[in-house]
């Protein structure tokens, strides 16, 4: 018999339905990843026991770990499904939706909280003038090197899912947003909003909620130095708090 792989996928037809597990057995192919496995299931949606079922719903796009849409729990850990090579996973491969985001269907979840958080800290460079401002200030290579890793964030939300502090009772903002504050505060034009971003991070659910468990930096698929960004921003927020108090 040909070599096979087994996937156990948690299914849920809608946000209010009861979840259920389905097992699939597929013929092994070299270089298979969790998304390609689910594409095969979609082509032939039959469970291991021969029951016909529906294709699995999930988000994905780039298939090369740059769009950030395919985050899910694979064998219990948050990671990108498109770069999760089946050969490197323990069988049967357990696939579940991210647990801390509202479920849409099957493995698709609503991660708009990150987008909302990024808006609340003004994670952008304010250049909305009506006329040409000319070229911006020069960014030196040393600064570029510091900024670049943080600019690689793909908004996958893995860092938030794995964080023990990111949950409904803390309302913690999560590591990704803090790293983006660090990034935009460093930008020569983005700096204009530095104090607003730092003040935003002092709010409830802000940077203080981080318990420094360091899961975020472990799971981040883009190897963003998140703990460094949190520590650095922690200092800046503290400085801002003192400034606000003593200088008004």
């Amino acid at each position, binding site marked *: 018999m040909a070599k096979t792989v087994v996937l156990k996928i948690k299914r849920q037809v809608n946000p209010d339905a009861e979840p259920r597990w389905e097992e699939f057995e597929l013929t092994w192919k070299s270089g298979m990843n969790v998304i390609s496995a689910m594409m095969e299931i979609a082509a032939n949606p039959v469970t291991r026991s021969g029951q016909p079922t529906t294709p699995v719903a999930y988000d994905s796009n780039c298939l090369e770990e740059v769009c950030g849409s395919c985050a899910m729990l694979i064998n219990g850990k948050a990671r990108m499904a498109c770069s999760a090579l089946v050969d490197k996973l323990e069988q049967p491969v357990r696939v579940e939706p991210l647990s801390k985001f509202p479920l849409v269907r099957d493995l698709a979840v609503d991660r708009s*909280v990150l987008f909302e958080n990024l808006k609340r800290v003004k994670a952008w460079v304010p250049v909305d003038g009506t006329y040409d401002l000319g070229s911006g200030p020069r960014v030196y290579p040393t600064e570029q090197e510091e900024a670049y890793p943080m600019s690689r964030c793909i908004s996958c939300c893995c860092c938030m899912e794995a964080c*023990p502090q990111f949950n409904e009772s803390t309302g913690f903002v999560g590591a990704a*947003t803090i790293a983006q504050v660090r990034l935009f505060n460093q930008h020569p034009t983005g700096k204009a909003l530095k104090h607003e971003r730092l003040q935003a991070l002092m*709010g409830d659910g802000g940077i203080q909620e981080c318990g420094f468990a360091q899961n975020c930096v472990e799971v981040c698929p883009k190897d963003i130095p998140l703990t460094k960004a949190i520590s650095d921003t922690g200092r800046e927020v503290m400085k801002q708090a003192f400034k606000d108090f003593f200088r008004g």
Partner: protein
Amino acid sequence: MATATTTIKRGVPPLQAGQGRSFFWRRLHSLSGIVPVGAFLLEHFVSNAFATNGPFAYRDQVKFLTSLPFVPVLEIFGIYLPLLYHALYGFYIWFRGQTNVNDYPWAGNFMYSAQRWTGAVAFIYIGWHTYTMRFTGTHLMGSGAQAAFNKVQVEMHNPWALAFYIVGITAASWHFAYGLYLFAAKWGITVSAKSRKYFGMACTAIAVTLIAVGLATIWAFVGPKWPNTPEKLPAEQTTLDGNRH
């Protein structure tokens, strides 16, 4: 997802930008663990280590501490209130977190959980220790100072109490040392991964040192050097079981 006004009704709520007071209380919690609670812990370890110089040295140290000016004020505002705040707010932090070491069994995450457990153990231990040493039995104020060695020694005759001392000292040492590490990381003192690594080693050394000092102190009470020290110490010159000269 990208509508002009996103309203998030389910799941983790977004950041309450600039709203609320939790930043102040949480940072105060972090700071209170270092001063005054951590500072008191160090003082307490050092003071008790005087027991390793025998009952007389121990009595003198107790005398010195109990004769400090404004002792009740120091106790209430330097120890009890900060300690209670640190402990109770700590439990509040614990219950709102969502430990997940089973899924993510990594060092930092393990320490995150351990910080909560050691804190709880230390708190229960400190509660019991304060009750038996400060609020019951012979009062150690004034001339009571000389009874201090005896009081601790008698308590440690009970093997359960002795075990609790060892567990409590270990938990408190661990909690304090890792608390230093967390403080430096969160307040942006050890920003780079390298500095955090080296400071982590330093904190481990601090934990080991504190535990060693604690055990040496316990040994002074339970070891063979000063057995059955009486409540009323004899005059300084006389020998105590032939060991003090």
